[in-house]
């Protein structure tokens, strides 16, 4: 099948790739751009492991086609840290030991960052329901929620 040329922006960098129109954005990120932070957990938009933002909107990259990224601004887990300086959310996830196998962690960070950008002062319930689309099989979620709530509090104080 004819391949399409896509020009887009990922984590602030202009990138381009050739893709089959049936390939997902997730496959393009992983296989063409070597950005393997986003994971395929289910391929049906139910687990959130492939979460990225597209023009600021939180999406499952397994449900979007690579060709649809044309001209968009994509943000992935690889872009959350500023070089070697970790984002407060990343620091808190480590501090709270809020991960085990770690494969849901990139998606949870992208989703949580997206939440805090929209709502710097979420209630615990709002946080839990916002993250309900990101499955984690290991942790039982408690430390994740506490890490996100604490990050929000710290970022509010700092701003």
């Amino acid at each position, binding site marked *: 099948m004819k391949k399409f040329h896509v020009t887009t922006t990922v984590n602030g960098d202009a990138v381009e790739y050739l893709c*089959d129109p049936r390939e997902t954005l997730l496959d393009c990120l992983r296989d063409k751009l070597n950005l393997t932070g986003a994971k395929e957990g289910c391929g049906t938009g139910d687990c959130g492991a492939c979460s990225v933002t597209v023009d600021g909107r939180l999406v499952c990259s397994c449900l979007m086609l690579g060709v649809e990224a044309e001209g968009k601004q994509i943000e992935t887990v690889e872009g959350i840290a500023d070089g070697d300086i970790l984002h407060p959310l990343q620091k808190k996830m480590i501090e709270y030991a809020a991960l085990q196998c770690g494969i849901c962690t990139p998606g949870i960070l992208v989703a949580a960052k997206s939440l805090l950008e929209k709502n710097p002062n979420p209630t615990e319930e709002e946080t839990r329901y916002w993250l309900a689309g990101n499955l*984690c*099989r290991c942790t039982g979620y408690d430390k994740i929620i506490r890490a996100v709530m604490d990050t929000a509090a710290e970022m509010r104080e700092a701003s």
Partner: protein
Amino acid sequence: MSVTKPLPHDAAPLHVSGSARYVDDIPTPKGTLHLAFGLSPIAKGTITAMDLSAVKAAPGVVRVMTVQDLPFANDVSPSIHDEPLLSDGTVHYIGQPVFLVVATSHLAARKAVRLGKIDYAEETPILTVEEALAADSRFEDGPRIYAKGDADAAIESAAHVIDGTFEIGGQEHFYLEGQAALAVPNEGGDMLVHSSTQHPTEIQHKVADALGVPMHAIRVETRRMGGGFGGKESQGNALAVACAVAARATGKACKMRYDRDDDMIITGKRHAFRISYRAGFDEQGHIQGVSFLQYAICGWAQDLSLPVADRAMLHSDNAYLLPNARIESHRLKTNTQSATAYRGFGGPQGMVAIERVMDHAAHELRLDPVELRRRNYYEPAHKVAEVQPHEKPLGHPDPHEDLTSRGAVETGTAPVRPLPAGGNTTPYGMEVSDFELHGMTEALMKSSDYAARKAAIAKWNAENSVIKKGIAFSPVKFGISFTLTHLNQAGALVHVYQDGSVHLNHGGTEMGQGLFQKVAQVAASRFGIPLEMVKITATDTAKVPNTSATAASSGSDLNGMAVKAACDTIRDRMADYLAERHQADPSAVTFTDGHVSVGEERYTFAEAAALAYQGRISLSATGFYKTPKIEWDRIAGRGRPFYYFAYGASVTEVAVDTLTGENRILRTDILHDAGASLNPALDVGQVEGGYVQGAGWLTTEELVWDGKGNLRTHAPSTYKIPACSDRPDIFNVALWDGENREDTIYRSKAVGEPPFMLGISAWLALSNAVAACGDTYPALNAPATAEEVWRGVQRMKGGI
């Protein structure tokens, strides 16, 4: 010292930046090919015709393989060679791999497998307990029976007798990283296999057999898994073998990962059970005798079903001293996925049944369920005489058998010889000498404010007719050790470099549980150096051979001790050398705070390592450990299968909408025994995650097969694992302040599986809430989904 510190996971900085590599993230050699299986669409039958021409002609397809294309063993079974990689002409469940497609991309392979045209002569599948019993379709020639005293006589003469039968559903592992493997051909026919597996040695063995080469030609490396939970103990064999066979055939690296739906359709899950019970109690609620009839639904191949079903029998006592007990276990063969290891390995199913008995008895006798349980506890911890285990005589083992698998169990028959009644012994004759639950229960009753909350809930239920609340307590006593005694061994390899940095390797695998960090903490503590000086490395069959699976909660116990032994060997060599140089006694050489001191002299650890190197001292050592004191005869049901027990206790409160069955966990309080914890942060993580996963198993996670044997719940859209929004509103988790009474690594206790069974309190709390709707016992099945809770409410109200 590094041990006991609440440090985060060793790879946490990699995980939060998205740079931690799982098998599917490893950069692949140019020209890597991708694999997918063509699956059987019927549950039982024979292949009559196979036309794969359209598959071969599909875009990107490089090769299509069937059983005829396999050069050597067509076997991925961890036990009795009854699980072919590709169908041998017969099929035994919907989802069985029939042919293999090798293509230029994952997508191309997956699209091509849909094009196979295969005709089958269909037979009637065996899908249920009744059908399996009617056909006498089973593993082993008959049931296993363990007995103590005379259960039937004790029940007959008891003041109160209860009985019942209920279903316990299976469980999908739902490791978020699906099964994956990558095989890279090396020179001279050697093969490097990256596998997401809990058991690299078994992968090595199965790949070697499939390629017709000795094990030394195969190297298996596993840096990490994205969750395992038992689902990667044997279920990764098929992918690794397929990749190796295809890599051998094409000369290219081959990679395979199951898409989520394929993963759920192909791989085994937790065993579903049906359990019948009959128990007798006296007026005060002391159990007199209990009889269990367990039917384990094992699926189409034996896999690890025998030891799983054994462990269900071994946990039929849970925390209770049963004066008379009889446990009969049938292992049924059905045309469904081959049930496999899953966190707890049968223990949870056995434990659910005795907790059901206690709950039912408390309802019948109108006693507080906590009080009734405490009256039946084992005696508190006490000293017992040491008994030396008997070494089993070894015959001539077959080196081609996979001896490192839990499937390599003894089989046979033995007459049932009940153990004598009485004593503080389990139904299999093991003295319980480390029982912690009296103190733990007392502490949890206080910290959870159980009595006051129970009274408040009774008041709420009296005043509210639609939303009913429930509260329940459940204890856990879980046996630690592989029941196949010879698996309780581990090896390690430690190097100290001349700059004082340390390379650490052992046979355990990292699946998120934090094993690598805990073991690195042990190494850092032995050398008295900061943790940053210890490099954690991938599990590698070329570094430590003949490993057991990282399973049975044994990872830290076994590998921690093996690493300690290796570190101590090097440390002693360094101490001997420095003592000699300074004419001091080696015992006076100390390793603390990154320094080595001998008399007045103080070296940095790096200086000491450099000195030892110049003194021509070997700075590399292997370490080995085998668990003492254990022996087990699974046929007779006697011995000491476990080195010790890990304990836990939980209280869960729920609310139920009696009109819909919808429910929520409102609060959970847990006190868990991790001995002297090696790392409280990681251990609490295991407890929280274990509880939520256990509660998920017994509440929302329902596997549904249709009448033809099709699994209808094969994605997260239809199979509901707990989400962030399902976590208890209030979640209080604490570790019991104690230490292991046995001499384990820094007196810690295993913590992988035991907390899973704390989730039983969630199931019992739902039962307690439903019980508020009437006078009878709710008799819920598991999982208690919203539908099952609603049915329970209807039964209580006489509706159905």
